């Protein structure tokens, strides 16, 4: 019986997603690029962002999330959350998002705090969190997203 309730809850959550997407309240898209270093005619190294479909260990990838309010109402409490895959390590200082406060999680997205406020408990040994500890990033918009307005969030990570 319990399982059935769980199933119904999951379904209703899915339905909420589906409705939001159908009604187009907010449009959110993400894309991933990687840094490609080339040498220009002057012999200088140049870094370019190119579309990423394949990567090798050591590659630096950049995730960009864009969102737009396509509803008829201002959106309050807009929060973008993005996981950092286990095989990626966040590059410290790379998270960026105009008009947002950036927070991180070290516990799989259960709790979030600002960069400096996070600690990691290693067998009772509490130390400040490092970039490699982050499992999720979230961008908390400080103001409402007006009708038709667009926002952007971005971060970089290196492939382990």
């Amino acid at each position, binding site marked *: 019986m319990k399982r059935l309730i769980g199933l119904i809850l999951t379904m209703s959550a899915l339905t909420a997603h589906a409705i939001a997407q159908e009604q187009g309240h*907010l449009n959110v898209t993400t894309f991933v690029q990687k840094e490609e270093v080339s040498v220009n005619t002057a012999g200088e190294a140049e870094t370019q962002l190119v579309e990423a479909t*394949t990567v090798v260990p050591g590659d630096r990838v950049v995730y960009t999330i864009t969102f737009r309010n396509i509803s008829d109402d201002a959106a309050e409490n807009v929060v*973008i959350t993005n996981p950092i895959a286990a095989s990626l390590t966040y590059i410290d200082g790379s998270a960026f998002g105009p008009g947002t406060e950036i927070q991180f999680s070290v*516990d799989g997205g259960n709790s979030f705090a600002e960069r400096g406020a996070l600690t990691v408990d290693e067998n009772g040994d509490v130390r400040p969190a490092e970039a490699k500890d982050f499992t999720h990033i979230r961008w908390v918009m400080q103001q409402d997203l007006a009708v038709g307005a667009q926002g952007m969030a971005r971060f970089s990570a290196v*492939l382990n």
Partner: protein
Amino acid sequence: MRTASQRRASALLRMCATACACATLALCNLAAAAGTPAGTVIENTATVSFDLGDGPLSLDSNTTTITVVERLDVAVTLQSPQTLVSAGDADSALLFTITNTGNGSESFQLAIDSLLAGDDFDPVPAVPAIYFDTDGSGDFNVGDQAYTAGVNDPLLAADASIDVFLVNNIPGSATNGDLGFSQLTATATTGTGAPGTEYAGQGDGGVNAIVGTSSGSSAAIGEYFVSEVQIDIVKTQAVTDPFGGSQPVPGATITYTITVEVTSAGTAAASVLADPIPTYTTYVPNSITLNASALSDSADADAGEFDVATDPMVVVRLGDLTLADGVQSIVFQVTID
């Protein structure tokens, strides 16, 4: 119809996918050395939550997918120190380690080159010339399996390594102090090229393979040094009789002085001087000195001892001696029975 245990298993998997991004730290570190395995698919979905005045809503973005391709990289390192040989030596081995520093499983082709510039003589590769350290001893011996190109190219998982010997004969014409080089090269079977060169579909599980910073090939050079060391050993004696003279009579003391000196290029490795006590004499306890420093009679940390065996002898370990070490002087005394 899934069983209860299957359900438990899939629930655990889900937990791992979300919660323990790096909870299994040991595992993460293990993977970090060679990097994320080839074929890994990294998906990313952002979530936006918001409120349009009717309560909180949440939306997922599209999902981006990137695939980790195989990076072809290898490192060959020499394990042997400079190997001391004599002219005409057969089957002298150099030990190397080959490590797959890429992120996929790869086989490597091995090659020997003993015709290198910059040395004094060319070692002559034995036939066959490349062996695996099959018994893991670090020493070349009969149990070690020969390598045949294209037949038993070593297949190494990401981060795995294997020890390999190059076996050469030293020409009889090599002379003392000569240096001879021999090189081992390991080359990724999938391919080589400038870093970034791509081999479509040839990586693990059909992903692309890309040549890494090693260019897919690595080499290391070992050195043979011809060292036919010339050692001069001179033994002298001085007799002091109980009557103030120098007659070898019973009760007289004989002081032996032995000098050891390397007089050529090369190293006399782990030199040991062993001198039996003559018959009809008795060793004078605590009389051994090395370069005027006393050595105790017991077998302990210092360089010498009086070995009370069937044939009692004075033993002094001189270590690795070269021309630069000069004269080593050992003195001890006996009395005539």
